[in-house]
């Protein structure tokens, strides 16, 4: 899932300054699960904005709403009236959702309330970590199911580098060296020979370096 993190309150404050009718719009899927943009966070953020404006002696009217997914145009129609009534939408969706909103409501200012951070998983309640970089060319079959692109600080395909010490990455003793993990895992799977094969130069064109990506499945299109 997509993991996000709410923007610093000061940044949000600056973004919305001058607007007095706000729609704080949450997204109830990925970013809700990472406690950044669900209804729970919408209410908290709205309350903070109201208090802040009250202290500054400024009026503000906030509508709090959340929809299942901001990344699908069909869902966006349900807030049509709310959007029409406000000056600005503060979207707590990921970057995809914010853009979908902007595309669906071209006349409205849509502001991002969160930073879309990575694709990852919940390690445990309150802890999330990155797992995938969306490179467009998966190599997990050869690396014991651990991704060196998302999880190696250097994105090395033929690791580890000289900075791997006692299984930790040189950038921080808190970060595991994913290449160490890959070796351990392959060893456990009895597949160490996979490491003897050198990764050829990776084709980064499919990772977005070749321009915005788009997928078309002819069999599914109208």
């Amino acid at each position, binding site marked *: 899932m997509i993991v996000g993190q709410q923007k610093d309150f000061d940044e949000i404050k600056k973004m919305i300054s001058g607007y007095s009718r706000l729609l704080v719009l949450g997204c109830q899927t990925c970013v809700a699960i990472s406690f950044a943009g669900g209804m*729970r966070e919408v209410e*908290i953020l709205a309350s*903070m904005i109201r*208090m802040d404006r*009250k202290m500054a002696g400024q009026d503000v009217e906030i509508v709090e709403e959340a929809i299942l997914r901001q990344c699908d145009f069909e869902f966006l129609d349900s807030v049509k009236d709310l959007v029409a009534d406000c000056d600005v939408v503060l979207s707590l969706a990921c970057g995809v959702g914010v853009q979908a909103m902007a595309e669906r409501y071209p006349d409205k200012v849509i502001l991002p309330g969160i930073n879309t951070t990575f694709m990852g998983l919940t390690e445990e309640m309150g802890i999330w970590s990155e797992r995938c970089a969306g490179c467009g060319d998966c190599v997990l079959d050869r690396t014991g199911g651990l991704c060196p692109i998302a999880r190696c600080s250097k994105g090395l395909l033929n690791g580890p580098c000289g900075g791997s010490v006692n299984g930790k990455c040189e950038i921080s003793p808190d970060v595991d060296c994913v290449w160490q993990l890959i070796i351990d895992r392959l060893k456990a799977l009895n597949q160490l020979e996979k490491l003897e094969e050198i990764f050829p130069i990776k084709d980064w064109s499919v990772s977005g370096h070749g321009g915005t990506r788009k997928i078309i499945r002819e069999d599914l299109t109208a």
Partner: protein
Amino acid sequence: MKGKFEPLILAFCCNFCPSCSADLAESAKLQYPPNIRIIKVPCIGAVGTIHILKALENGADGVCLMGCLEGNCEYSTGNFRARKRVQYVKKLLGKLSIEKERLEIYNLSAAEAHRFCKLAREITETVRTLGPIPLKIDNSKI
């Protein structure tokens, strides 16, 4: 800002021990400041960030959470959760330039009527010294 300021404080009390202490204080006719309004909750862990913020937004000058003694939570970790949450909300209050001292969490057993009163006086005094929550002052300016 004239006249004597009397703060309004919302106390979330866990239904187990702290509410018992509060009831005991009442039935023993022990004095605690009338500034304290008590809301009983099933577990102090059930008090969310939003509840604390809404209390302040709606006119409370201070908020306190009263949970059971650590290790005595009926639901094992509700009071730890609440303690962490209070730390988090204090950070949020910092962002809003609202004094963090307006929010406090205490742990109480069931028979501490006197301590309940003492803590009630303590937070009332703290908040009285801080003055009304900035939300109100500015309201009056408009």
